């Protein structure tokens, strides 16, 4: 069966350090992968998209990598700040299809 897995345990990290989150998938041939941020009591907000033929994408302090051989995406927050504390969701869209499938999300807590 198709699965998207994110670490369900919260990631506690010291301010200024790099947070690294993992998104693993099985039985998918994704056209692209997206990362969203969700704050408590709010809807997800789009952060970054990476396509199957791209290895890395950056946006300010955020970096996403995509390894279709390992079936894994890594999401990095460099120089983390307390304001980065949130839940981060990965989502995949298959090459054939018009829907996104979301992972369960990983909560990040950045301590000052």
């Amino acid at each position, binding site marked *: 069966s198709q699965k998207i897995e994110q670490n369900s345990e919260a990631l506690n990290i010291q301010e200024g350090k790099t947070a690294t989150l993992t998104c693993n998938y099985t039985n998918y041939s994704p056209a692209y992968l997206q990362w969203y941020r969700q704050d408590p009591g709010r809807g997800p907000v789009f952060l970054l998209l990476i396509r199957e033929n791209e290895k890395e994408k950056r946006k300010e302090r955020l970096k996403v990598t995509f390894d279709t051989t390992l079936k894994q995406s890594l999401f990095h927050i460099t120089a983390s700040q307390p304001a980065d504390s949130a839940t981060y969701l990965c989502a995949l869209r298959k090459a054939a299809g*018009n829907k996104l499938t979301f*992972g369960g999300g990983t909560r990040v807590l950045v301590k000052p």
Partner: protein
Amino acid sequence: NAGVTQTPKFRILKIGQSMTLQCTQDMNHNYMYWYRQDPGMGLKLIYYSVGAGITDKGEVPNGYNVSRSTTEDFPLRLELAAPSQTSVYFCASSFQVAGITDTQYFGPGTRLTVL
């Protein structure tokens, strides 16, 4: 632009009652979606629509109905509320054409409790 708006923000239903969750977007997006999110879990797709008059089931459609009579509105109907439908419901929209990717824009959510 208001983006995606949802009403109500909160609702408590008794078992067997019915209600409609409203969703409106003002971005002229062709695609609209309804998701539910249970505590500590990701989003599960209930129904989606690729344009006015066209809807399709997602991963967890049982107990729900939708309609899409206009581009802007995509209401979600619960006919006979059950405790298993206690969740936070998110509406989202996106613009999709062949070759253009879909960033989804989400509403603020409706928190529904069925007692």
